[in-house]
């Protein structure tokens, strides 16, 4: 027993030593919170008044008022149209841009401009892009479609490029060795490797566009957002509640549909499998870190 001093020494040592660097970071964080809260004049009094208001506010939201349902349905339809067309246009643009941005297939002088386009499209919120398009093409659904198409490019093209960069080049080389043209290399060497992932990104993009298409109306770019904003400004909180419930229902329906499409294309489900809700392979396709909208 005496020839094992190392064990007893380590068992006496604190297994969780104080980490001064992490403590320092926690203190810095706490100081920041106090400082920033003071900057925004948050006070207990204001919160108390707010909570009192909140009761009143929610009291007026219920029961939701669906009497003006025609306007509601019209707005939702327009949002849906914006989402579908923006996704179509955005994905159609994203495919070539994403291909150009992939560094393994394209030379640097092609990939850098394409990456720049993607970064520029990503950095602005769709609502800000919508403001610019409202000025360019006037109020209405067209501005919304173009704004969301730009947002789609920023997002889908980036994912496409990343997916293409992860492919195996052996197959590309094999197709090239047969003397295939560039388009054939893309069609038979690249596309089969990334198609299933692309479908996943497309359904995700449609989902994200659907969420945003209900918002761009706030700046006059069509869809239900305009109606929602107007109802807020007129303090029609019961109608606001009706609109919100409808939007959430629409988004959830979209999510369910997207799951089915992913099941068909990624897991190889047939229609019968979906109706039987069979979980073949039971793979959960989590598109991680894609939740940005």
């Amino acid at each position: 027993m005496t020839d094992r001093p190392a064990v007893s020494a380590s068992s006496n040592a604190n297994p969780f030593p104080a980490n001064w660097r992490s403590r320092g970071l926690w203190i810095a964080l706490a100081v920041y919170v106090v400082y920033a809260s003071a900057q925004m004049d948050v006070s207990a009094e204001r919160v108390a008044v707010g909570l009192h208001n909140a009761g009143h506010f929610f009291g007026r939201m219920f029961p939701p008022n669906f009497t003006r349902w025609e306007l509601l349905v019209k707005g939702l339809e327009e949002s849906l149209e914006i989402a579908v067309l923006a996704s179509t246009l955005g994905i159609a643009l994203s495919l070539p841009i994403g291909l150009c941005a992939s560094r393994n297939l394209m030379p640097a002088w092609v990939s850098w401009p394409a990456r720049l386009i993607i970064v520029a499209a990503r950095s602005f919120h769709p609502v800000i892009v919508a403001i610019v398009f409202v000025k360019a093409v006037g109020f209405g659904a067209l501005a919304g479609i173009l704004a969301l198409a730009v947002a789609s490019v920023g997002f889908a093209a980036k994912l496409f490029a990343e997916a293409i960069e992860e492919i195996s080049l052996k197959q590309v080389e094999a197709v090239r060795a047969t003397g295939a043209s560039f388009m054939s290399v893309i069609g038979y060497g690249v596309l089969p490797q990334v198609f299933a992932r692309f479908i996943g990104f497309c359904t995700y993009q449609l989902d994200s566009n659907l969420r945003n298409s209900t918002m761009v109306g706030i700046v006059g770019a069509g869809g239900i957002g305009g109606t929602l904003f107007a109802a807020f400004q007129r303090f029609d909180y019961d109608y606001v509640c009706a609109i919100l419930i409808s939007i959430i229902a629409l988004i959830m329906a979209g999510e369910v549909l997207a799951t089915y499409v992913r099941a068909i294309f990624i897991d190889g489900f047939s229609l019968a499998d979906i109706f039987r809700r069979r979980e073949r392979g039971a793979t959960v396709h989590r598109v991680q870190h894609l939740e940005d909208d």
Partner: protein
Amino acid sequence: MTEAATQAETPLPVAQRIWRRFTPAQRVARFTVFLLVGIAIAAAIQTVEIIPEFLTDAPEQMADLLTRMWPIDFAYYPQGVHAALTETIHIASLGTLLALVMAIPVGLLAARNICPFTSLNLLAKFILVSSRSVNSLVWALLFVGIFGPGALAGTLAIAFRSIGFVGKLFGEAIEETARGPIEALDAAGAPWLSRLAFGYWPQVKPAFWSIALFRWDINVRESAVLGLVGAGGIGMILDSALNLFQWERVAVILVAIFVVVILAEVVVTFVRGRIL
């Protein structure tokens, strides 16, 4: 994923077999999706209200917009933009921190290996889904209605919108933790809190901070627009510049947003590289 289905039931000579990647049922399913997508696009084009004159007019209007934006009014930056930009960053940061605080308990409840009660799991999932389904602008409208215009409403909007995102990913990270260390702590008689702090937390720590940083990056972007509905930050001055058609000011605000968003992304990439 790739399933080869031979055409014939009885084995033919190899040369005569037709190999297909998908079974007929799979092909029908895929075709149905393409068909439905086609119908949806056609229907949307048919019914959407687009005024063609506006579209033909667009290049001219764009050119007009750019000439109005030039020269960019950089002199306005120290006067109005800087304070609003700082406020935007405060909204994003405080909102993210508040969201983290609120999302941890919800994420714990949503993780099935920590909370064994299905009803509580479902309640947590419901909270997460509703937080995510409501856009941050709608949260902002709600909080402006409750607390009045200002940064407080913006911070709360960002926080409530982020709960769903952070809670969902945090809950999933907890569900993926290894059982070993937890069982070891259990065997040593560790109480519930010690199991969380010394069994789960070290395993999910990198994921947690990575989720937090990622959300902060998104929130910097989102907090820039909250001002359009009165929830503070740079969106407020953007809104007033737009309403007054001061396009040179709009230009400087857009440049400021662009720079901050890019910087945030650089910071996040750098810090993630350090902590992961």
